C-alpha cells in the first residue's frame, strides 16, 4: 500500500496517525485533504435572512407532529368506518364461522390505517421502517381471513373491488400528501403514509367483499393497495416541498 493510499484509508476511517500527518506535510497531493475547519463567514445577507426567519417565527405557530399524526389517524378512521357503513358488511353477516379470523384481521387493518401516521411522521426514521415491514405482511393476513370460497362474480365484476380500494383512499391520501409536503421527501415515510391511507379501502372491503379466494384478495385488494402506495410516493416526489425538515 502506497503512503497516499494509507493516508486516504486512515482519513476515511478517522484514524490518522503521526506517520500519515508526516506524509501529508510532505505530500502536495495529500496535504489539502487534511481535516481543517473552515472559519465562519458572515455575509451581510445573513441579516436579511435572520429578519425574514423571525417574521416567520411570529406568524407560524408550532405544529407538534403528534397532532398531525392524530389528525390523520382520525381522518383515516372516519373514512374507513364510513365506507364500511356505505358498502355494507355482507361478508361479516354471512361468514359466521370465520368471524374470529375476520375480527383479528380487521383489527390489524384498523391498526395499519391509524398507526401509519404516527410511524411515518415520527422524527426517528426507524419507526417507519418497522411499520413498512409489518404492513407488507398484511396481504398474508387478508388471505388468512379469506374462506377460499369464490364469489359467483366474474373477474370483470370483481374490478369494482380494486376501484373501491382506490376511490375510498382518495381523501386520506390527499391529506397524507399535504402532510408529507411539510417535510423533506423520504420514500420510506411516504410509502408508510400512503399504505396507511390505502388501508381505509382494504378495511371497508374486508367486511363487505364476498369473494374469499386468495387470487381475488391478492389481485383485487392487496395489489391495488400496493400500487396506490407506489403512485403516491411518486406523486409526493413531484410535489414541491414546503419544509426540508427530516
Amino acid at each position, binding site marked *: 500500500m502506497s503512503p497516499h493510499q494509507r493516508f486516504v484509508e486512515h482519513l476515511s476511517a*478517522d484514524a490518522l496517525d503521526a506517520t500519515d500527518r508526516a506524509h501529508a506535510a510532505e505530500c502536495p497531493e495529500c496535504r489539502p*485533504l487534511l481535516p481543517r475547519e473552515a472559519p465562519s463567514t458572515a455575509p451581510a445577507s445573513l441579516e436579511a435572512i435572520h429578519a425574514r426567519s423571525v417574521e416567520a417565527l411570529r406568524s407560524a405557530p408550532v*405544529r407538534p407532529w403528534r397532532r398531525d399524526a392524530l389528525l390523520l389517524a382520525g381522518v383515516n378512521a372516519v373514512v374507513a368506518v364510513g365506507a364500511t357503513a356505505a358498502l355494507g358488511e355482507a361478508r361479516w353477516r354471512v361468514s359466521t364461522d370465520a368471524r374470529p379470523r375476520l375480527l383479528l384481521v380487521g383489527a390489524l387493518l384498523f391498526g395499519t390505517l391509524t398507526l401509519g401516521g404516527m410511524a411515518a411522521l415520527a422524527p426517528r426514521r426507524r419507526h417507519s421502517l418497522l411499520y413498512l415491514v409489518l404492513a407488507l405482511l398484511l396481504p398474508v393476513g387478508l388471505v388468512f381471513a379469506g374462506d377460499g370460497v369464490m364469489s359467483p362474480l366474474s373477474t370483470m365484476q370483481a374490478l369494482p373491488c380494486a376501484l373501491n380500494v382506490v376511490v375510498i383512499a382518495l381523501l386520506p391520501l390527499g391529506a397524507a400528501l399535504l402532510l408529507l409536503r411539510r417535510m423533506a421527501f423520504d420514500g420510506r415515510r411516504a410509502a408508510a403514509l400512503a399504505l396507511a391511507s390505502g388501508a381505509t379501502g382494504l378495511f371497508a372491503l374486508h367486511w363487505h367483499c364476498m369473494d374469499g379466494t386468495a387470487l381475488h384478495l391478492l389481485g383485487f385488494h392487496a395489489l391495488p393497495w400496493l400500487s396506490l402506495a407506489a403512485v403516491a410516493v411518486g406523486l409526493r416526489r413531484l410535489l414541491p416541498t414546503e419544509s426540508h425538515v427530516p
Partner: protein
Amino acid sequence: MERFVHGEESAFSELFARHAPRLHGALRRIVGPAAADDVLQSTFLSIVRARGRYEPGAPFRPWLYAVGINAARDHLRRHRHEELQPPEDLPERVAEPEPLADPGLSRVVERALAQLPDSQREAILLHRFEGFSFREIGDLLGVSETAVKVRAHRGYERLRVLLAAHRGEP
C-alpha cells in the same frame, strides 16, 4: 432549542448567530456562492415552520445540517439543468479567482470537490470542513455509518487523483 420551539425570538436569534455563518459556508460549497443565501433562507424557514418536528433532547447542529443538506439537494434537483451551461457559453480560460476568505481552503480543492458526485461531496464536506463524525453524518443523512465511510473513502480517493492530475497540468 426548547425555548425556540415555543416561539421565543431571542432563543432563535441566539441559535441563528451561532450556526448560520458556518452553515452558510457549508452550503456555499454544496450549491455555490450564488445560491447559498437562498438555500440558507430556505433552511431557516423550514426549521421555523416545522419546529414541531424537533425531537426534544436531540442535538441541534446535526438536525440543522440535515435540514440544510435536504434544502441543498432540493435546490440542486430543481436547478441542475439551469446551471449547466452550453459549451459555447463557457469561457476558454478561467480567470484567476479572487482569494477566498479562508486562505487555507485551496481553490483547487474546491474545484476538485465540485467534480465529485453529490453523495461523496456531502460526506467529505461534513467530515472535513464541519467536523462531524461519520456516525453523525450517517444519522443526519439517513444512511448507515458504513455507507458514509464508503462514500468518504471513494470521495477522498477521487479527490486525491484529481489533485494529482491538477499538479501534472502544465
